[in-house]
């Protein structure tokens, strides 16, 4: 009964020009062209987008949630990267 699954694709939609593409979901399709057409039919039935990307799910390299702390930790103590770190008197305007 079991047969070969179509590969999995991740779908990204640009809602309108000026905005970045945003992940919307995923779907199975035999190739990129069919993935695009299926994505249009499933994810943009009500004018949700003006541009679509489909990416093979297998092509995505993701950071490991197990290493989340170690991976993102280096920014934790660099509070001098934020504007609030610097003390400027109230009287100084436009800064």
């Amino acid at each position, binding site marked *: 009964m079991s047969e070969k699954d179509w590969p999995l694709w991740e779908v990204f939609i640009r809602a309108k020009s000026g905005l970045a593409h945003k992940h919307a*979901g995923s*779907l199975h399709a*035999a*190739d990129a062209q069919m993935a695009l057409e299926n994505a249009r039919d499933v994810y943009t*039935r*009500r004018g949700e987008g003006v541009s679509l990307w489909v990416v093979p799910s297998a092509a995505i390299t993701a950071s490991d949630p197990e290493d989340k702390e170690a991976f993102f930790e280096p920014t934790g103590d660099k509070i001098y990267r934020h504007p609030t770190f610097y003390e400027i008197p109230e009287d100084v305007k436009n800064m």
Partner: protein
Amino acid sequence: MYTQGLDIKTGDTSVPLERGDGQLDRRFQAKIDADEKIEPKDWMPEGYRKTLVRQISQHAHSEVVGMLPEGNWITRAPSLRRKAALLAKIQDEAGHGLYLYSAAETLGVSRQELIDQLLAGKAKYSSIFNYPTTTWADIGAIGWLVDGAAIMNQVPLQRCSYGPYSRAMIRICKEESFHQRQGYEIMLTLCRGTAEQKRMAQDALDRWWWPSLMMFGPSDKDSEHSAQSMRWKIKRVSNDELRQKFVDVTVPQAEFLGLRVPDPDLRWNAERGHYDFGEIDWDEFKQVLMGNGPCNRERMRARRSAHDNGRWVREAALAHAEKRRARAAAAPVAEAAE
């Protein structure tokens, strides 16, 4: 609801009821208590994963099988407007099935596995789709009551602790409201029509009312996995609470139509601020869920034949993709020049 099968007492012990007490379990529960979302690659207890796979796949199967009773009326819709709306609604349901299968797949099961389980009769879907659609008024009643009950259940699921499920629910809820409105509009048109049309509407309500109440699943006192699911925030509101809410909002809608809800025990209870209503026929509920409803066999037969008859399309698409890949690999220069 669409996942009533989860709550039924089956003696199934694959999902542990007790809260785990390992350090990982405690950290996991603390995250959930703090309303943080769980994402696919995060650590999760095996019971959480299993419950979600079952819940999301049952929900997906329900969306897919749910297309059958309505599909029965596409070619016989009374006008082009109704036909276009019904087609669009059913197409949405196919999309809902896809969003949900995708969410389930993030938990490490394949789409094929889930579909095989459904076709082998090993998976459950909502009892509601095992009732026949014998008149056009049934299409009105389904949109109004069945999609109405689905919305009632799905709105709190938007806050489910599992990220992909919660996001699928948000998309789905956005699309559902048109479903309910198109159904109610059909009922309204029938109720404002001839005496015979109004009788059709009443007859549909008579047949769909109780099965719709059953959609919320067994009563809380008989709902085995509820407590754990609530703790995990996989389920946010109890079956009985949702059912009460549904009755409270739907009865006035029936009154507006001038229809009678087929429940002699139904009355407003001013003290509680809710409608009291009669006891559900739990025996019927269990029978339908176990496969002995009026249309269970027909639904499974239709799904299997759709799957079998579509096989050549799935294979041809793969073969076509393979041929294009091979051609592109053989003649990269010519391709680029085109």
